[in-house]
């Protein structure tokens, strides 16, 4: 009993040290800010933030595969879409509760990531990218031309999870949990092995790492989180159609992850929030909005190769140190 108490207290003091450090402080501040959003009572804002949170998981799952394992996929929409479709089908046709449907949909995404991963792992670089792209496009065309699961129209009119604000907290919980798990994975032994494979595959092979198995594991973990985001996305918009498979979604993940900074996991948060909020704020400009958005995109990619998050944090940290008089 005493021991448990002691452990708890040391955890608490470690948490306090972390919270007062620069990174911890920023993280907590953002988290509190996020949780305060529904209290403003603005449904529109909450809706945008929900979309941003779902896309964060999606971008982070791509970052895990491409940034850490070095396997650049252009077909992440395949995992996103298959999970969304299965979730929608289970909710609509079987009447399963939404949290069960998420698990089933995600399970399918993992199975698919294995199915896509096994043949595609023979490929490297641009060939791997194109192989995964081809898989996603085949799924897109199959669902577009086929008559199963609603054909071209897809499945619509799913029941809502709850009111917007309830949904907000559910999505926030999913996002925070997914990001913590992903960060824990990349900081663990598995993450080190994946980085070794990314940096020097031959070297990793020579060091006795079974690269094929670990690359497949990376594919499956990435598929798992992409599946979660796909299921949440469908539950949020309460409809699904073959458009979820289109390459645009795969590229959204890539763009969001690289705006934030590749191989950071947390960069995806910055990337997807920036991406979603920017496209939403530019909306009043009507036709010019997407043009401005595309121009900004080109400029960001051109001038910040490491993404916007890390350089920005560096500047803030300098400022922080100056304020504290170091």
């Amino acid at each position, binding site marked *: 009993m005493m021991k448990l108490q002691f452990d708890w207290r040391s955890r608490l003091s470690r948490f306090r040290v972390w919270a007062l450090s620069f990174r911890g402080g920023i993280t907590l501040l953002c988290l509190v800010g996020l949780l305060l959003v529904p209290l403003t009572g603005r449904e529109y804002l909450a809706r945008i933030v929900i979309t941003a949170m779902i896309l964060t998981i999606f971008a982070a799952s791509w970052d895990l595969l*491409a940034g850490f394992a070095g396997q*650049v996929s252009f077909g992440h929409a395949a995992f996103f879409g298959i999970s969304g479709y299965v979730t929608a089908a289970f909710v609509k046709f079987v009447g399963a509760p939404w949290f069960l449907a998420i698990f089933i949909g995600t399970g399918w995404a993992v199975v698919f990531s294995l199915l896509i991963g096994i*043949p595609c792992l*023979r*490929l*490297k*670089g*641009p*060939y791997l*990218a*194109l*192989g995964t*792209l*081809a*898989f996603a*496009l*085949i799924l897109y*065309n*199959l669902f577009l*031309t086929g008559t199963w699961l609603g054909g071209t129209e897809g499945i619509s009119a799913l029941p809502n999870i709850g009111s917007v604000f309830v949904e907000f907290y559910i999505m926030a919980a999913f996002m925070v949990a997914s990001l913590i798990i992903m960060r824990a994975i990349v900081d663990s032994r598995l993450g080190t092995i994946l980085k070794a494979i990314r940096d020097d595959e031959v070297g990793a092979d020579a060091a006795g790492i079974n690269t094929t198995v670990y690359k497949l594991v990376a594919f499956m973990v990435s598929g798992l989180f992409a599946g979660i985001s796909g299921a949440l996305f469908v539950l949020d918009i309460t409809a699904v159609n073959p458009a979820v498979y289109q*390459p645009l979604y795969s*590229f959204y993940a*890539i*763009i969001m992850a*690289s705006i934030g900074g*590749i191989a950071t996991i947390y960069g995806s948060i910055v990337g997807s929030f920036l991406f979603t909020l920017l496209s939403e704020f530019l909306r009043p400009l009507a*036709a*010019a909005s*997407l*043009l401005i*958005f*595309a*121009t900004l*995109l*080109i400029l960001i*990619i*051109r001038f910040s*190769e490491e993404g916007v998050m890390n350089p920005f944090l560096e500047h803030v940290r300098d400022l922080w140190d100056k304020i504290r008089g170091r």
Partner: protein
Amino acid sequence: MEEILIFGTIQGALLALLALGFSLVYGVGGLLNLAHGAFFLITAYIVYWTIHLLTSIPGLSYYPLVFGIAAVVGLSSVVTIGAVTYLGLMKPLQKSHIGVVLVTFAMAFFFEQFVKFVGDPKTHYIVPVVPGTVTLLGITFPAQLLALVFGSVILVTLVTLFISKSTIGKSIRAVSQDPEAAELVGINTDMVMMTSVMISALLVGFAAVLYAPGNYIAPRIGWGYLLLAFSVTIFGGMGSIPGSILGAYVMGYATTLTDYLISPSFSQIVPLIVILVMLLVRPQGLLGKKRLQ
């Protein structure tokens, strides 16, 4: 049977124009140019806008002249765009291959929105410059498509000759084999890569000038052409010029065959399945030389 022969040749001629430049740019610099389809789009729209502008001038009523001016304007713009894209966006990001992919994707997105913003999101129609129809082997088809086949054959021959015979062509081949060694013997690799991006833009521009008249154009068409160029390049072998020409015609006949035997809606999937099988069985493509390490 005659239908497959004729329409397959037409399809193959279009694919050869689209894929040759794409493959060239990948082979020389390892640059995956996702704005390739957008080059087609922007050329088609510049031609359309110039025709629109010129026909409002009262004196100009001779359509081939108007179209000729529009084609020259469109082609020179697309070559300039290609050069500017290379210098401004691809060259600084060359170190990271994903950077080039991202920036050209953003570029393609930009052109799509630009066309939507300057013009409008509706579909437009360019009147074919070669009027009437031609009957060959009992099949009747628009004469414009015959111009496409001839134009494609001439251009592809010229570019192949240029690359195998001229000095710049030789440096292009040298850079594609070993960029560092090419730089050591005094070849300006940046210049060579810029030239290949410009040739690529010129070829895809010609594809637009020859194929867009008589067809509908809309802001989203760029992606479809990009995908076609992609699939042929994978099929024929990344960076292999004879491979992409051969691949273009094989793919052309294959899609036409599926159109007739199964259904036109299914023929969109068949190239993708062919690519996938190709990637798994022979990743370097039909005539690709580059081995996978």
